């Protein structure tokens, strides 16, 4: 099994830590790059930086500078980024947020699980389905 590249933008350091822990506890060794806000992630993706196109993006909705909705909108506007799978990974389970995310072109919407065991399961199923 070849390791895949994942980009994750989340302003919450704890969540970034927990995702990394869940990956490790599931014995998954994908290369994950973490960003603290949407702008950092977009900068990474810019063509002049010559970075590799990732296999998956995990995007929080509410972040400083550029939030998840803006980032998603921009990603879906560029031909080159059009096919990157984007999973929204947010605390919110408000119907409005979920509908908006799918309308903007999200491939999946996952509400952050409330226990670590659930998180581990979620990460495993993301790995199986999307990578």
């Amino acid at each position, binding site marked *: 099994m070849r390791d895949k590249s994942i980009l994750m933008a989340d302003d919450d350091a704890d969540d970034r830590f927990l995702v990394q822990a869940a990956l490790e506890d599931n014995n998954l060794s994908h290369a994950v790059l973490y960003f603290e806000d949407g702008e950092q992630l977009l900068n990474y993706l810019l063509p002049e930086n010559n970075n590799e196109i990732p296999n998956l993006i995990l995007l929080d909705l509410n972040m400083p500078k550029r939030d998840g909705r803006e980032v998603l909108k921009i990603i879906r506007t560029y031909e080159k980024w059009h096919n990157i799978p984007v999973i929204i990974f947010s605390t919110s389970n*408000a119907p409005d947020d979920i509908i908006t995310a799918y309308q903007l072109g999200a491939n999946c919407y996952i509400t952050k699980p*409330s226990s*670590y065991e659930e*998180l*581990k399961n979620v990460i495993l199923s993301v790995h199986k389905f999307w990578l």
Partner: protein
Amino acid sequence: MKLSTFNLLNRTLSEQQLSLITRFLLGTSLILIIALSYSYNEINQELINYSEKVNQTQRVISSLNEVSSALYESTYHANTYLFLKDTAYINKTLAAAKTIPALTQKIDSLVIGNESQQKRLEALKVHVGEFSTYTEHLAKSVTLVNPAIVYALYKKKNLEVDSITKLISEMSNVEGQLMQMRMRSRDNYKLQVFRYNWIIMLVAIVFLSSAFVLLDRELKRNKFYRVDLENKIENLNRSNSELEQFAYVASHDLQEPLRKIRSFSDRLISRYQEEVSGEIFQILGKIDGSAQRMQLLINDLLSFSRIVKTGSEARLINLNASLADAKSNLSEMIIENKAVIHCESLPSVEGYGSQMVQLFQNLLSNSIKYHKKDQRPVIRITHRLVNGEIIPGVKPSHQDIQFHQIRISDNGIGFKKEFSEKIFIIFKRLHGRNEFAGTGIGLAICKRVVSNHNGYIFAESTEGEGANFYIYLPSESLLS
């Protein structure tokens, strides 16, 4: 002092009393004004009558004067003849005398109804007849040479003239007095009637002004109430939307740290399972349990805050379909507890579909949850139409409206009578968490759903004998 008494009086008047008083004042004023115009019409008729009578007297007097002057003319020509012996004057005498009977005839119709005057007129007519006869004889006798005869006739004629003159002056006097009397009583009548009318008019004006003052005050008060109401509605809307925002934000922001507490304690357990002692393990379990419970509470609070705003448009909801959805959502619970649900055909009401499903779902799951250990739960749902006035604590504006009464009764453990209102309070629980799970949000949501539909919900039970829930939903749409 006067003003304050007036104000006090006004302030203590209820709306109904005020309306009655205003109606009375306006009604009485109207009646007075009609009476006044009728009275003026009568006065006019009466005054015309008086004027006619005065006029009649004047005509009698003037006719009598005419008789007088004809008599004078005739006498004058007769005297001239006696002096000049010119027969032309005899003819003039005769001509003047001949006009008199016609003049007396004219008076005839004018003195009808006045006996003494009629008698005098009759006497007058007799004397006029005599006078005419003598005058004619006198005219015929002028060709005779005997002056003695002429003189005798002349004298007789003059005697008649005296009598006639006397009668005329009597009649004139009587008519004069009559005229004065009539004029006096006309003036009296005028004075009396006008005084009386002034009083009526004054009363009408006072009543009308009072009604005006009362109405004006009511209008001002209404305007004040309207402005006050508008302000209150605005405040209410603002605080409602603030409350919604608050509940939503609080729920989301409170979730974050809780999720972390649970996730980290979870990870602690899974990561250091072998190294951690049993006590630490137990404590971590308690931390997780508390955090889990708080999460449940927050989620319930969030669903409650979502139900507060109705969101979608109201439409016609078939309650049979709502009940079927609720039953299918609870199918596992129903099968597990072998619950039996009997249901009559339910009506359709204007409302919000998902809320109705939730209403039935919460009530049914409650009934199943609180069943007696040794009995399978049996739930009966019945429907009938009732008048709003039978609902306890119904709003005055709902009293005349028909309501659908939906009764959900079960054979469960029931509850003490004094809890029949408390059970609808958010997070209010009648049992320990070890006995029955749940946060105590279900019935609070039911109450909210029903009040979103302008309805009412009541619970009734005796401990150990099952519970009845009564839902009242308006049969006509009251949702805007």
